[in-house]
């Protein structure tokens, strides 16, 4: 620490401006004041760091080895000298006396001020876990932290970065470039969730993993391990990760202690008005330490605006600060990520989405009322500033809207703003389909040769048959070549979010080995950020079916009944239907049901059309307790209203009935025990009748068995319901075991090939009985493989979801977040424990 105390000379009539904080905002404010009136103030700056004013945001490139400290200095020693600014560095201010109008530093210097500017920035937030004070646990805020990281990296070993936001990822990148083995822990499900939507967050995670980092999302830190130095990090789920260095980058808090102690008004930050004046008119504040209009800040752009307003105020111009939108870029070489404004959509907002899987590009522009309100760009951020500019200027984009997503070059091309005109203007050699190398000339020739739909084009010249991103161009070419009216509609798309049909999506999931919903949406160019209530449940099912035991079910993509394992009723209560194997029950179960009905005051209990008992009027909060009682009596979840096996209806059969030919009851129970819990494209019902009198109505079930003297007739594709369809006879087999295998193989074929929400009846009408028979009958090996795949998948899905919930899983689905009892005038709020 070096300084010579400044004594105001008697002739020094200028007011004394003292600045606390030698960082980005403090020095910029001084620059702005000097630019307006270089002679008005005498300036002294205190800085806690023993350095001159440098560009904090460039610490990341310094860590990554792309810049040196000298290259990131904003104002060197000569600046202070040239402007007669006194810099007192390496000596933090420890007290402000507003009455005496003085500040005192740690080293004991007391200086008087006429105006005081507080620009103390932020403190990194340290999560309050055991071990946080161990040597080797640091934050990422200043040059000292960077030096610490460089020293650790020189020793090698592994680092854990806690926090998958901008700062954390930049730290992780730098450390990994410097040779450390890096694990990023992020508590949220996707990275940088405050700047990026899920799709972009997913792409980013993939890219970081491809670069060798380990990224754990949904990772909640429980403790930092080590005795004399950090050795690792423990997560709440019990995982332990070894580490020689832990970087905490979970957020920042405005640095307000000094201001608070001085009695200034402080909320989350130091409260300032539009001219950056605090509750004391002689004291101003600027930068990350302030709270303006309820907002605090963590990026530099708004701070520059604050500095301008502040300097205007200090030099009597009084422009006033108005917050505006901000944009972010991740400073990791080779990973282009940009986000700006508000991308939450909401009222009247429309998303324009472009996904190019082959080039790893995702772009999303959010438009409301012909104005851009937000943008997220991944992979190609060249147009980020253009979108941001349109956003800030509130430009009307109605005229360029259709071409907006293609970027500035395309959208501003005057007459080319109409995408169809742009396609028309392409030369015959222009490549339309990058995947299959098809030119415009070839596509047009193939349309002229009779391909009058997108599908026909895909079938003939392969354009848009692979990744599908050129589908819209092919559609334009069809319309241009044939005229709008003559284009034939292709098969129905899954929903408005995609141009693909169900079959295409299923095929590509398997062919490309896709593993998650965001991955499917990216690779297949979804036009919405996170799908809709039609496609999400379908994708969840397709992935579940393709990756038994591996795919992690997405609860939020399930319809309420499958999420709650009970059936929602019109008044918001639920009905509960415990499974009754084959329609059989016993006194213990009946007693448990009776007890539940009484205990929870259920208004109704009824025998269903599926041979079981349905208890009505249960509140969502009571469901786990009801299930606990039913579980205790040995009953499991009914999957009562899921797209899954419902019931196996049986009749009394040979055991009691004078006409019975086989043990239909016993076999029904066996089938239900083998098939329950399986997720299907739609609900699935089975029945076993003991003789052709068919009391179990097996011939209107998805799979029905009619027992006869010589064996078992297997019937498929029946449906009661809206449009009654009697079953087709699939085959007749001699033994129970063969009938069971047939049932499993049939279910698996249906699970793998039917479209979501297509029951077996319409599916068989579509593909034909002959096709189903060809897959199940002639080739015993193929049939056995189908059955084996079914049972493999069953080995993961036959868990009782009720039991898990009773144990406390997903408690949040059942308990309210808070309870509020209004007792005016004194409010009382009782929170749930």
């Amino acid at each position, binding site marked *: 620490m070096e300084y010579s105390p400044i004594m105001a000379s008697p002739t020094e009539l200028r007011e004394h401006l003292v600045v606390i904080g030698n960082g980005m905002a403090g020095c910029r404010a001084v620059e702005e004041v000097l630019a307006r009136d270089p002679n008005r103030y005498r300036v002294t700056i205190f800085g806690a760091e023993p350095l001159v004013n440098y560009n904090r945001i460039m610490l990341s490139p310094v860590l990554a080895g792309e810049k040196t400290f000298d290259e990131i200095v904003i104002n060197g020693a000569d600046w202070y000298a040239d402007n007669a600014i006194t810099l007192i560095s390496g000596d933090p201010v420890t007290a402000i006396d507003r009455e005496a109008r003085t500040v005192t530093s740690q080293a004991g210097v007391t200086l008087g001020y006429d105006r005081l500017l507080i620009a103390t920035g932020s403190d990194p937030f340290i999560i309050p876990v055991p071990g946080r004070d161990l040597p080797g646990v640091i934050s990422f805020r200043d040059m000292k932290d960077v030096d610490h990281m460089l020293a650790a990296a020189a020793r090698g070993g592994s680092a854990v970065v806690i926090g998958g936001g901008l700062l954390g990822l930049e730290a992780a990148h730098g450390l990994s470039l410097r040779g450390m083995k890096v694990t990023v822990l992020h508590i*949220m499900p996707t990275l940088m969730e405050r700047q990026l939507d899920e799709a972009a967050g997913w792409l980013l995670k993939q890219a970081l993993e491809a670069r060798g980092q380990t990224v754990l999302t949904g990772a909640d830190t429980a403790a930092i391990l080590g005795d004399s130095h950090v050795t690792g990090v423990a997560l709440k789920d019990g995982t332990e990760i070894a580490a020689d260095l832990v970087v905490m980058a979970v957020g920042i808090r405005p640095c307000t202690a000094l201001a608070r102690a001085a009695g200034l008004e402080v909320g989350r930050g130091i409260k300032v008005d539009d001219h950056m004046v605090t509750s004391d008119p002689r004291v101003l504040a600027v930068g990350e330490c302030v709270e303006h209009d309820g907002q605090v800040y963590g990026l530099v752009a708004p701070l520059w605006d604050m500095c301008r307003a502040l300097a205007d105020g200090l030099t009597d111009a009084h422009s006033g600060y108005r917050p505006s939108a901000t944009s972010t870029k991740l400073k990791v070489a080779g990973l282009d990520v940009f986000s700006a404004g508000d991308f939450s959509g909401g*009222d009247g907002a429309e998303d324009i989405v472009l996904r190019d899987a082959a080039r790893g590009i995702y772009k999303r522009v959010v438009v409301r009322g012909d104005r851009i309100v937000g943008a997220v760009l991944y992979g190609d951020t060249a147009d980020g500033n253009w979108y941001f500019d349109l956003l800030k200027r509130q430009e009307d984009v109605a005229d360029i809207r259709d071409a907006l997503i293609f970027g500035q070059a395309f959208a501003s091309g005057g007459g080319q703003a109409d995408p169809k005109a742009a396609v028309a203007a392409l030369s015959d050699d222009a490549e339309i389909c990058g995947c299959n190398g098809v030119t415009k000339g070839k596509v047009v020739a193939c349309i002229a040769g009779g391909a009058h739909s997108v599908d026909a084009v895909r079938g003939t010249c392969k354009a848009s048959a692979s990744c599908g991103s050129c589908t819209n161009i092919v559609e334009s070419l069809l319309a241009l070549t044939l005229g709008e009216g003559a284009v034939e509609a292709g098969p129905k798309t899954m929903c408005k979010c995609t141009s693909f049909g169900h079959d295409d999506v299923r095929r590509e999931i398997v062919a490309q080995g896709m593993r998650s919903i965001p991955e499917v949406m990216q690779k297949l160019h979804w036009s919405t950020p996170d799908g809709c209530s039609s496609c999400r449940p379908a994708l969840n099912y397709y992935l579940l079916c393709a990756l038994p035991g591996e795919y992690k079910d997405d609860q939020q993509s399930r319809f309420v009944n499958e999420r709650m394992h009970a059936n*929602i009723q019109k008044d*918001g209560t639920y009905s509960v239907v415990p499974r009754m194997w084959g329609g059989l029950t016993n006194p213990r179960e009946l007693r448990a049901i009776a007890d539940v009905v009484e205990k929870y005051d259920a208004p109704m209990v009824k025998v269903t059309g599926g041979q079981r008992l349905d208890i009505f009027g249960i509140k969502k909060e009571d469901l786990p307790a009801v299930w606990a009682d039913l579980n205790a009596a040995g009953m499991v979840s009914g999957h009562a209203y899921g797209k899954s096996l419902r019931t196996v209806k049986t009749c009394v059969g040979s055991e009691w009935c004078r006409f019975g030919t086989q043990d239909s009851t016993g076999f029904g129970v066996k089938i239900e025990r083998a098939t329950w819990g399986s997720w299907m494209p739609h609900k699935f019902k089975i029945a076993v009748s003991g003789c052709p009198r068919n009391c179990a109505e097996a011939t209107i079930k998805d799979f029905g068995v009619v027992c006869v003297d010589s064996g078992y007739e297997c019937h498929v594709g029946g449906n009661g319901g809206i449009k009654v369809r009697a079953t087709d006879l699939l085959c007749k087999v001699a033994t129970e075991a063969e009938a069971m295998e047939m049932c499993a193989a049939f279910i698996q074929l249906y699970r793998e090939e039917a479209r979501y929400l297509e029951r077996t009846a319409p599916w068989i009408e579509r593909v034909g009985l002959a096709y189903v028979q060809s897959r199940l009958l002639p080739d015993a090996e193929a049939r056995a493989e189908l059955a084996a795949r079914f049972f493999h998948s069953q080995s993961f899905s036959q868990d009782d979801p009720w039991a898990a919930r009773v144990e406390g899983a997903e408690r949040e689905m059942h308990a*309210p977040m808070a*309870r509020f009892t209004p007792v005016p005038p004194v409010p009382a709020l009782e929170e749930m424990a």
Partner: protein
Amino acid sequence: MIGDWLDIGWVDEIPVRGSRTVQVEGGDDIAVFRTGEGKVFALLDRCPHKHGRLSQGIVHGGAVACPLHNWRISLATGEALGEDRGCTPVVPVKLSGGRVLICRAATLKAAA
């Protein structure tokens, strides 16, 4: 401040693309939603169509699909989207240091 806003808990307690409820004695629940982008919204837990529990629906983009008949309701305005017409009262929300606060007056009014 305390009088105007009700602190109902940590934002992390609401599942992403999901929702939680706040029980209001003597009135309908308030449904508090968190979107894929982490934005938080609150609506009366009652669909303008036939009073379905919106908290139990599928959240996508900035909307929720009602579990009863699949109307889509905007989380920001409570308006039914698409062809459907109707509106559910909105309860203003703000986030502060990871806590979710909902507007007391609107809660009382909505639930009245």
